């Protein structure tokens, strides 16, 4: 009898958990936290459903200490061209900047130059991910006079293993 009760509880918990996982995110492309991928050190300042987009209350383009030229200097000096792997396309690394300017929850998306899904060799994507994760100049943002967490992305245009341009 006790075993039946326990099994029922476990079954109900299983259904409930699956329902939570299957719930849609608030917005398209919202990043669901994942302890395995993200660890536990990165924290939002506000609730999950209060993360805004980078262009809310924007001062224009990316808000990084030293501006776009600082981002370009960082990546173009550190990214090593992968000459023997002639891969081309776009890589997006999207993440959250919290109200303290700390970053976390990195997610990759990549395509070929025809916008078709394409997975780059690790040598290319891992380099970009590492440099991105080490960035420490993201400016905290306020939205409606309150400290905000915001989604930010960087898109890297790669041509034949060489970094060509960074957006936005």
């Amino acid at each position: 009898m006790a075993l039946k009760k326990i099994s029922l509880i476990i079954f109900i918990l299983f259904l409930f958990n699956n329902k939570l996982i299957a719930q849609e995110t608030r917005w398209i492309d919202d990043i669901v936290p994942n302890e395995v991928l993200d660890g536990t050190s990165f924290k939002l300042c506000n609730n999950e459903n209060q993360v805004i987009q980078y262009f809310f209350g924007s001062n224009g383009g990316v808000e990084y200490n030293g501006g776009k030229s600082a981002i370009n200097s960082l990546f173009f000096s550190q990214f090593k061209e992968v000459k023997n792997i002639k891969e081309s396309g776009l890589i997006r690394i999207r993440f959250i900047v919290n109200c303290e300017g700390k970053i976390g929850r990195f997610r990759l998306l990549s395509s070929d130059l025809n916008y078709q899904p394409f997975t780059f060799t690790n040598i290319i994507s891992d380099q970009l991910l590492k440099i991105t994760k080490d960035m420490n100049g993201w400016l905290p943002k306020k939205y409606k006079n309150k400290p905000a967490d915001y989604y930010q992305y960087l898109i890297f245009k790669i041509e034949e293993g060489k970094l060509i341009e960074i957006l936005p």
Partner: protein
Amino acid sequence: MKKNILVISFIILSVFGYTQPNCNAYLWKGDTLQYKACKYYFENNRYYQFSREFHKVVDSTLAICPYFAYAYREKSASYVKSGNFIEWKKYMDLAVKYDTISYLPVRASLKYKFFADYKGTIKDIEILESHTNNIGYTSNGTYHLQTVKALCYYKLNEFEKAISTMQKYMKSSYYHPMIYDNLHMGMFYLKINDYNSALKYLLAAKKIYDFAEVEYYLAYTYKALHCKKKYLLSKKNALKLYNNKTYRMYDPYNFMIGQISKNDILKL
């Protein structure tokens, strides 16, 4: 007065660069499916474009009429703003498929701006050129698409083509002065080391509306021409204007072609 004309032009073109359809127009053409879809969309859409509710309304709209191009364009919008090139292209291509003339300008505008797809933008613009003489403006109204074509050539290091494209456009019957035209021409001439031509356009830009980028490229030009006094004055002006946020290039979504940061001025 000239500055006011430019500012007003910018505002008007920003509004008309992207307009929503008149649903009754489909009815007049006898297309009841698109009419119903259009009505459904505008009666039910009160959601933020990133939200799941918004996308459900769009999906329901497309269930009524799968060739209602406007809905595909709307669906693509949040993806381009989140940098999701795969999903954006999928829906944007469908908008272009079902209404080529209306949505090719949008696709062209966004390809170069968000994804540095300069060749793709030029290709889209050339398709448009085969259909019409005056290909119109970007979806946000900032540029005429001929200026975009010139900017794409510039980014592809084809500076002579950038110049000739812009010159042809500026001499055309449909040319309408926009705020960055002379600045960009100045930038193009700098790339081929034609400092006198660059100066001509940059001074024209300054006369109409002075902002940080104009002064920066002027400083750059004066430095190249060994005019130290003018170089230092322009550099100082660039910094002063930059520090006043109103007087610099601005786009909420990205760093524009030719836009500068404070570091650029300090390093000059």
